[in-house]
Structure formats: structure tokens, C-alpha cells
């Protein structure tokens, strides 16, 4: 365990760098702090005095921290910061809105044109809405963690589990709706015995399409959650390894 953890922990919180850059910077400072401490000890200072002097010597001012962050911020990240900053002009915001709206429209249009979705009918809508919500949340988290590289743990973890929950909800909804439509089909079969076979066949086709959409959507959402959760766990591990 590093003997300067109580100094490094608040420093880590003040250093908005993506991993692994943050851990590398902190490791470097931790190593130099320890060397500095040894240097002061060798020069005859007591343990406490040496420790205090080392910490004092390595105090990173806000200005130095900002400069460090600037050095490690890529051109792409700076561009994204500009895009998501409050300082955007009205036309920039409008343009972003138009691009996002067009992309969403094209995605929804493509999904609805799919044969399986068409066969499943309107009963697939609750599942589709959950799937879209999961994907949207996944994309937002992907942007935050991988592109914007905001690796502050509390923010990185926020809403992450909601993606897994949405994956589960898609499966449950798929089975529930299929079960309910079986009940409706059974009633129709009882009322219309002559075409009972046709009703049963139609149910089989629509229910299997519905379940296919539900399971595929859930699988995709779960995979996105898994990839994001692994990345967040990696960030947490990197920090824990350094600070505990």
C-alpha cells in the first residue's frame, strides 16, 4: 500500500483524465513522492517532517492540474467538449438537433421495415420501446465513457444498471405479451372452432416473431451493458490498485 494514499485520493478526484492516463500520472507522482520522502529522511528529517515536506513539494496547483489535463486532452476530445459546451451558438445546437433527429428517424424507419417486426405486429411495440431506450442509453454511456472519456466513477456508473434492467424487461415483456396473445387466440379458437387451426397458426407465427425480436433486442442490450460494465470495472480496478 502506498503511504501517500490520502494525498493521492483527493488528487485523483481533481484530475479529470481518462484511464489509463490518470493512473499513470498518479503512479508517477506516488513514486516521486516516496523518493522525495526518502531524500528528506536521508537528509536527517524525522518521518513526519520528511512526509510533510514531500507532500508540500508535490502540491499540484489548480493551474498545474489544468495544464496537465490540457496536455492529455486529445484534439478529438477538445472538439467534443466544444460540441457539448454551454458556449455553443444557436445554429450549432440546431444543426446537432437536426443530425440527431435524422439519425433517429432513419433507425426507427429501418427497424419498422424489418419483416420480423412487421409479422409480430403492434404487440411488439412495448418491447421495441424498451429496446430503443436501452440502445439509446447504451449509446449515451458509450459516448460518455469511450469518446468523451469522462472516467469519474460515480458518473460512469450512473444509469449503467438501467441498461441491464431494460434487457431483462424486454425478455419479460416478450413472454408476457406472447402469453396474453395466446389467451386471446384461445378465446378466438373457442368462438370460431372451424378456423381454430388457422388462429393457432397465426398466433404461432406472430408470437415467434415477437419472441425473436424480444430476445435479439435483449441480447444486444445485454451485450452493450456487459461491454460498458467491463470498462467501468476496469476503471475502478485501476484506481483501487493505486489507492488501496
Amino acid at each position: 500500500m502506498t503511504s501517500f494514499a490520502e494525498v493521492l485520493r483527493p488528487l485523483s478526484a481533481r484530475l479529470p483524465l481518462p484511464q489509463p492516463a490518470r493512473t499513470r500520472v498518479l503512479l508517477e507522482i506516488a513514486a516521486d513522492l516516496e523518493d522525495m520522502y526518502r531524500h528528506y529522511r536521508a537528509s536527517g528529517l524525522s518521518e513526519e517532517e520528511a512526509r510533510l515536506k514531500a507532500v508540500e513539494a508535490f502540491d499540484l496547483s489548480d493551474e498545474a492540474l489544468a495544464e496537465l489535463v490540457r496536455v492529455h486532452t486529445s484534439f478529438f476530445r477538445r472538439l467534443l467538449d466544444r460540441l457539448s459546451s454551454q458556449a455553443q451558438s444557436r445554429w450549432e445546437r440546431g444543426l446537432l438537433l437536426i443530425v440527431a433527429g435524422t439519425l433517429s428517424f432513419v433507425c426507427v424507419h429501418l427497424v419498422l421495415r424489418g419483416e420480423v417486426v412487421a409479422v409480430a405486429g403492434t404487440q411488439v411495440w412495448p418491447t421495441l420501446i424498451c429496446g430503443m431506450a436501452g440502445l439509446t442509453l447504451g449509446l449515451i454511456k458509450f459516448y460518455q465513457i469511450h469518446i468523451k472519456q469522462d472516467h469519474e466513477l460515480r458518473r460512469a456508473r450512473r444509469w449503467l444498471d438501467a441498461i441491464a434492467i431494460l434487457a431483462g424487461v424486454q425478455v419479460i415483456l416478450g413472454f408476457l405479451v406472447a402469453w396474453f396473445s395466446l389467451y386471446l387466440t384461445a378465446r378466438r379458437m373457442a368462438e370460431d372452432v372451424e378456423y381454430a387451426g388457422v388462429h393457432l397458426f397465426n398466433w404461432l407465427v406472430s408470437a415467434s416473431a415477437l419472441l425473436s425480436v424480444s430476445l435479439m433486442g435483449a441480447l444486444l442490450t445485454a451485450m452493450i451493458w456487459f461491454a460498458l460494465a467491463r470498462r467501468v470495472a476496469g476503471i475502478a480496478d485501476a484506481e483501487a490498485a493505486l489507492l488501496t
Partner: protein
Amino acid sequence: MDRPLIEPQSLAKSCNEALILACLEEGPRHGYQIALDIEEKGGGYFRFNHGTLYPILHKLEKEGLIKGAWSDEGPRGKRKSYGLTAKGRRYVANLRSGWREFIEHFLEVVEAEE
């Protein structure tokens, strides 16, 4: 040379960079060693907070003037040391003459005519 040798608007920064590069010309060093060496040789004029070292070191590393290397030093753990690159050596040679010229001009301005 695509990088200005001395930036008069941020003289302190240019000065710190020059001190670090000159110190590394003698051989690779850890961050804290660089700070101690400069303080020792500077006769008390160049005492700077060690915390300000990192932004400068990382900037110089990003520009390819110095190169950081991690080494496992047994019980002391991992340590990062910095050394000059070939580009850095060329830059330091120019830097020295740049500073000499700058100081000559500075003295010309501030020294009273006899």
C-alpha cells in the same frame, strides 16, 4: 524548428522547459531528481514546486523532445524516468544559443550606457 525556442509572453514556462531539457542532457532522470538537480545547480534562483514539473514533462514528452520509460525497481516499485530524444538533443542545442541571444538583448536593454 516547428517550436518557438523562447516565448517572451510566458517566460517562466520557457525558462522551466529549458532548465528541464538542459538537466536531462546529462542523462535520464526521475521527476523528483530533475527538480532537485535544478534546485541544487540553480543557486537558489530556480526553486519551483515539484508539482509544476509534471505538466511540463508530459508536454515535452508529447512533443517528442523527451521520452519517459517505466522501470521496475524491485522493492521501490515502478518508477518513470525521462531522457532526451534525438529531436530533444537538437532542440537543446538551438535552445542554448536562443537563450544566449535573448539574454544578450535583454542586457542591452536594461544595462545603463556608460
